[in-house]
């Protein structure tokens, strides 16, 4: 398994190099440059040109590309044009908030999504199933920015239970973290809970019709054991794949949620960088996201092999 993981990580290097090249190229091709954005409308062209020189944007494309890669192999992603700080520092500073909220949202998704899906499947065509399926459908249909604002009105303005925004680090104040992270995590998770519940329900229904489940029941095994031991093991195979996709969606969905709840995470950093055409920050942020997703995919592959012994991680089945 270790060899497999190492091999996958090594394979990731050229992919990441390609991602960085594409992100660099695309950002240069997209109209709008950071100096113009910083200068604002109606700026004196000489002032904009001065600013462009100050920011080092007057160099030719190829020369900027070479500088970027030379710095990259030395672990230097350059300096953010808008923050004036090293991109690496900015990304490292923002990562914990994004990952913590994504993990919190993932926990909520897995717990409630699986629970709702299993309960709906076990109570198929009953009022329980109807309610769970309806809630799941609503969850899938609601955009998270709308959900976030509604939650602010409900939980902050009306009930006064939670703060409207901001972020407290877990290590400094766990209760404060819980208070500030709950609404963002919920607004990220609700959509995914609905998705996971629907997939779990349909998979569970399919599994429950299998012969081996009937056999297990015929042997007099308790229903709880049939579900948890025999059915869930097979339900988890497609669910793990979906969970991998969900986690990537949770990370990418953080752009909107972090903006609404004023959380200094990777999402808001990247969104703002794109709006200001902060090339180094965009490239650094995209590299971070790409790396995270690649690591995630490798972990999912490993998990897949764990849940399904028929799958060999060396590629043979």
């Amino acid at each position, binding site marked *: 398994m270790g060899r497999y993981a190492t091999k996958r990580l090594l394979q990731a290097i050229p992919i990441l190099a390609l991602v960085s090249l594409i992100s660099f190229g695309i950002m240069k091709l*997209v*109209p*709008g*440059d950071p100096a*113009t*954005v*910083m*200068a*604002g*409308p*109606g*700026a*004196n*062209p*000489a*002032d*904009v040109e*001065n*600013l462009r020189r*100050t*920011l080092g944007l007057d160099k030719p494309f190829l020369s900027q590309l070479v500088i970027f890669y030379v710095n990259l192999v030395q672990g230097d992603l350059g*300096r953010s044009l*808008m*923050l*004036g*700080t090293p991109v690496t520092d*900015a990304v490292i*500073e*923002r990562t914990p908030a994004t990952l913590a909220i994504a993990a919190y949202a993932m926990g909520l998704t897995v717990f409630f999504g699986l629970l709702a899906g299993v309960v709906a499947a076990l109570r198929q065509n009953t009022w329980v199933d109807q309610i769970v399926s309806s809630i799941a459908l609503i969850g899938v249909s609601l955009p998270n920015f709308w959900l*976030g*604002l509604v939650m*602010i*009105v409900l939980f*902050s*303005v009306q009930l*006064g239970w939670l*703060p*409207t*925004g*901001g*972020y407290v680090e877990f290590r400094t104040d766990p209760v404060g973290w819980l208070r500030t992270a709950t609404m963002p995590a919920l607004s990220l998770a609700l959509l995914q809970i609905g998705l996971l519940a629907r997939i779990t329900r349909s998979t569970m229904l399919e599994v429950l019709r299998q012969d081996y489940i009937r056999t297990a029941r015929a042997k007099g095994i308790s229903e709880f054991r049939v579900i948890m031991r025999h059915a869930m093991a097979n339900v988890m195979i497609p669910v793990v794949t979906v969970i991998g996709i969900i986690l990537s969606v949770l990370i990418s969905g953080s752009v909107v949620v972090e*903006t*609404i*709840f*004023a*959380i*200094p995470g990777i999402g*808001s*950093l990247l969104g*703002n960088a794109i*709006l*200001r*055409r902060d090339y180094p920050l965009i490239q650094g942020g995209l590299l971070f996201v790409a790396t995270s997703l690649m690591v995630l995919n490798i972990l999912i592959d490993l998990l897949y092999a764990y849940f399904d012994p028929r799958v060999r991680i060396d590629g043979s089945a």
Partner: protein
Amino acid sequence: MTTTGLGLRTAALAGTAMLLLTATASAQQAQQFRCPRVGGDLIFGLEARVPMLDQHVTPAGATRNVTMNIFDTLVTRDENMNPLLNLAQSVDISPDFKVYTFRIREGVTFHNGKTLTSADVLASFQRYQRVGFDRSILDVVDSMATPDANTFVVTLKESRPTFMEAVSSFTVPIVIIPSENANAPAQQLPMVGTGPFQFVEFVADSHIRIRRYENYRPDTRYTGLRGFGGYRQACVDTVTFRMLTEAGARTAALETGEIHGSEDVPTASQRRLAGNPNIRLSRLENFWLHITYPNVSVPPTDNLLVRQAIQAAMNMEEIMEASSDGAYRLNPSFQFPGQAYYTDAGGNLYNQRNQARARELLARSGYRGERVQLLTNREYPSMYNAALVMSEQLKAVGINAELLVLDWPAALQLSTTNAGWNFFFTGWTSVFAQGGAQSLRNLANPANVHKPPNNQTDPEFQQHFNAIASGTTLDERRAAFARAQARAFDQVLAIPMGVMPKVQAVRANVEGFEPYFAVRVSNVSIRP
């Protein structure tokens, strides 16, 4: 003309449109501001992220919100946009308007404890010349000298009566920094100033915290706040600027009391908050001039008659209603009412709503249905809505109008070229607010946002614009401004659509807060 005495100086400067307001004896007799109470952490919600804190480098209003409470300038502006002495104790201007001699206020210290001298002022100006965004305002400077620790002399290459207006501009102000920080690269300026608050921390995209500078000495020439200067005191212990870019979340935070103030309250929320006894709304009537300017290099807007037809067809009430949710004021001027340069010259061409005249001008122009592209964006809904309504008004008179919607950076970038668009939608605020030559500079050489052929603006407009800068009396400059504005309307170099206010809000227990072109937290206190 060398001015020495205060009364003479004031008179002389008034004659040159620079009411360098020093309160003098009358101010000393009047009661100076005293904090009703001291202490507390004032939390203010900002509508935009602060991109950086190097005030020499960025024109971002979000940066000014913070830095104008930390730094001082030699000369700033009062509420009516007249230059106002700040760190300068006095200024003597030679009769030929070429030598400006500033006396520096004594006893002022930086947040690092060092006493301010003319060397620091010189170093600040030199850094601004090197990395300052608006460094072109110092192009006219021939030399700068510090004959003694409290004197700073600027000698210009040519006579420039409006030099004080230029150096007091707060769009990208020449904030005064300690000389030891003058070599700081762009964007890496240490936050050490002489203002009433000193820097504590900046967590990008989250918050900025400043605290009271205990050794700050208020400018006793004044009795209270005057623009960015005047008699300033830090009444609260700390101020936390939280970046809450989502308007709904920011308003909710104000309602719950998580923040004491909000930089901007959307029109839709104003009605609700107006009925909340815990919240006080404040309104800066003249904040944002909604404007569109043509590209006069491409057809059909290279044709003056087409531009005039478009101007005749426009109904500003409809446009502004859609842009501002009803919170607007029509303004037939490139200035705000009440300002020294305000005039309605050429205003007869504003808001004509005359479709018959538009059709007649179109017929005379030889217009044959060429596409008129209205370049706008969705990041600023007011600009998008203005473009949308204007396109319908143009279609109504037979113009083939079409929206070109890009994101803001792309739209801005395209607007700097002279192809691919016919009208660009934007807003002017701080530059425009500061009046005189500054507010029309975007239409003059070399800025020329309307992209004239060979980047040479209308010669007659440029002549009037030059006269604003060279007029030795305020009356001369006002007259030149009026001529320039009338010409801008006549040639349709830009079309002002209306003025939008800035509505801010604070909790009812916040005292002394007044809205301005940036958030001022001096003289603001919190009642328990």
